[in-house]
């Protein structure tokens, strides 16, 4: 495992294709999400009743839906929701999982046992059950969905963090830091974390994808965000009734989601290739 900065320049020049494609896709996605307010031709909820079910064309790039809303504009705004869900959920799981993994790996012994066994219990719960239960019991909201999905992903993040920490603990620089009498906080934050984060980036990309897809399933089952939100999962769910007569309503968000997921996955895979030369070509 290597820090990004320490990778020889030559390896950056031979960037693997997945990383480039993934990077371009993800940067586009970020740009779209950030600029949606300015680049979207119409507000996401504006109805043009006379132009309902208009096919894709110059006026409406990706056609209109059953209310005459511009599908393209909704796609742009939808990227914000998907990203918000994916990123919030991942930040939550990293925020909880990384410290847990660091502590477990650093302290070992009883602390380790306690943390890891608790996480085992959590992992024994089928992922979707927990989210479904929470969303069925209480009114759905984006925040709640993000938190639920985020909490679900704590155990895998903690596990990865712990195993990398265990690897690093045998390294000399930790010994050196200990010998210098550095405090635990310093060792964890300054010595361990910078060495772990490349691996975490890869894991995080997986988690974002997982959150986006699970969010779509929840929307489909009717436990997701509220209409008229331009949520991709919700758009697919509503558009599926018109799939014969106006396929663009459900196909366009499907395409957007799939590009997002592929982009993030490729980026993650590519990063792994660069960060871990051992894994090159795998």
């Amino acid at each position, binding site marked *: 495992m290597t820090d990004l900065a320490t990778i020889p320049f030559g390896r950056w020049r031979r960037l693997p294709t997945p990383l480039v494609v993934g990077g371009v896709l993800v940067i586009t996605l970020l740009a779209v999400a950030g600029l949606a307010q300015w680049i979207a031709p119409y507000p996401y909820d504006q109805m043009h009743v006379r132009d309902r079910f208009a096919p894709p064309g110059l006026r409406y790039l990706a056609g209109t839906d059953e209310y005459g809303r511009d599908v393209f504009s909704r796609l742009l705004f939808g990227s914000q929701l998907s990203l918000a869900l994916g990123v919030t959920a991942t930040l939550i799981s990293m925020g909880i999982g990384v410290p847990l993994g660091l502590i477990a790996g650093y302290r070992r012994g009883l602390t380790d046992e306690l943390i890891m066994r608790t996480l*085992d*219990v959590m992992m*024994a*719960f*089928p*992922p*979707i*059950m927990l989210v*479904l*239960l*929470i969303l*069925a*019991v*209480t009114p759905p909201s984006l925040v709640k969905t993000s938190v639920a999905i985020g909490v679900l992903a704590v155990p895998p993040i903690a596990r990865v963090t712990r195993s990398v920490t265990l690897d690093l603990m045998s390294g000399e620089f930790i010994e050196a830091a200990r010998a210098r009498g550095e405090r635990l906080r310093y060792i964890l934050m300054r010595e361990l974390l910078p060495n772990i984060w490349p691996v975490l980036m890869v894991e995080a990309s997986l988690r974002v*994808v997982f959150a986006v*897809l*699970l969010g*779509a*399933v929840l929307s*489909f*089952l*009717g*436990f997701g965000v509220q209409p008229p939100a331009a949520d991709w*999962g919700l758009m*697919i769910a509503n558009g*599926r009734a018109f*799939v*014969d007569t106006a396929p663009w309503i*459900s196909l366009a968000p*499907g395409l957007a*989601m*799939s*590009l997002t*997921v*592929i982009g993030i*996955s*490729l980026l993650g895979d590519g990063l792994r290739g660069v960060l871990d030369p051992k*894994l090159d*070509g*795998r």
Partner: protein
Amino acid sequence: MTGYVVQRLGAVLIILVAMSILVFLATHALPSNAAALILGQYSTPGMQAALEHKLGFDQPLHLQYWHWASQMLQGDMGLSFEMERPVAPMLWDALSRSAVLALSSMAVVSTVGLALGVIAAVWRGRWPDHAASVFTYLGISLPEFYWGLVFILVFGSLLHLLPSSGFVSLSGGVGPFLAHLIMPVATLTLTLLAHVARLTRSSMVEALESMYVRVARARGLPERRVILRHALRNALIPSITVLAQDFGFLIGGIVAVETVFAYPGLGRMLVTALERQDLPVMQAAILVLTAVYCVANLTADLLYAVANPRIRYGGAID
């Protein structure tokens, strides 16, 4: 080995107990007034109180839990609030149908996934590798329900090749039974394939470059035999673990797929119960699904222990 099994079984039991408490508390945190739900909109508070008493909802929580858990252990899952019929027989029926779906999907996922992984590893960097990679990426890039809808459109509405929904038991004929399974199984397979295929590929790559494979090659064994007997056997172990993990995803995926294909399994039963706030069905379905999940994980762990790589690696070079 025996000690390990006992320890793992103990862990599963503890997890199940923890889970049952969690399910019980979560469903009891429901803001819904269960009695009002059962009695409908014309009920009076008095009637609701009487029913709550009858259902034992006015007792202390731990007593309620004890009562519920001991009934569960005896296989009595109570009466569905809404349908007023016993939950257990409905649930076992639904579970058996879900099991058919899950096991056939797992069978397809493991064979196709391993095959794809092996092919990609053997021809790594060349077109079969890229093709397998694109295929698996496509599969995971969209949620199950989307592929389900696409399949229904193409094979049901457009081509009229396959029945788009429902379930036919084996007694209704082998042909119809299989025909109804194809699309749900294909959907679940598509979304699970990537995981197994990619892992098999990377462990195969590692195995193919390992010492013992080189030794085997050097001894002049045919390449086919080297790949299947030596490399794959060792690459299988991580794949088994990942397959067990996939079983968890499968349980999640089954909920959506059963809804899309109107497949009368446990996943759909759970979604309906959640929508209708049918407490006993909800509790029983979640608990049973969790138990299945735990058992799957346990099986995977035991398999992994049995096929411990270190032991195997030693013996592989015969």
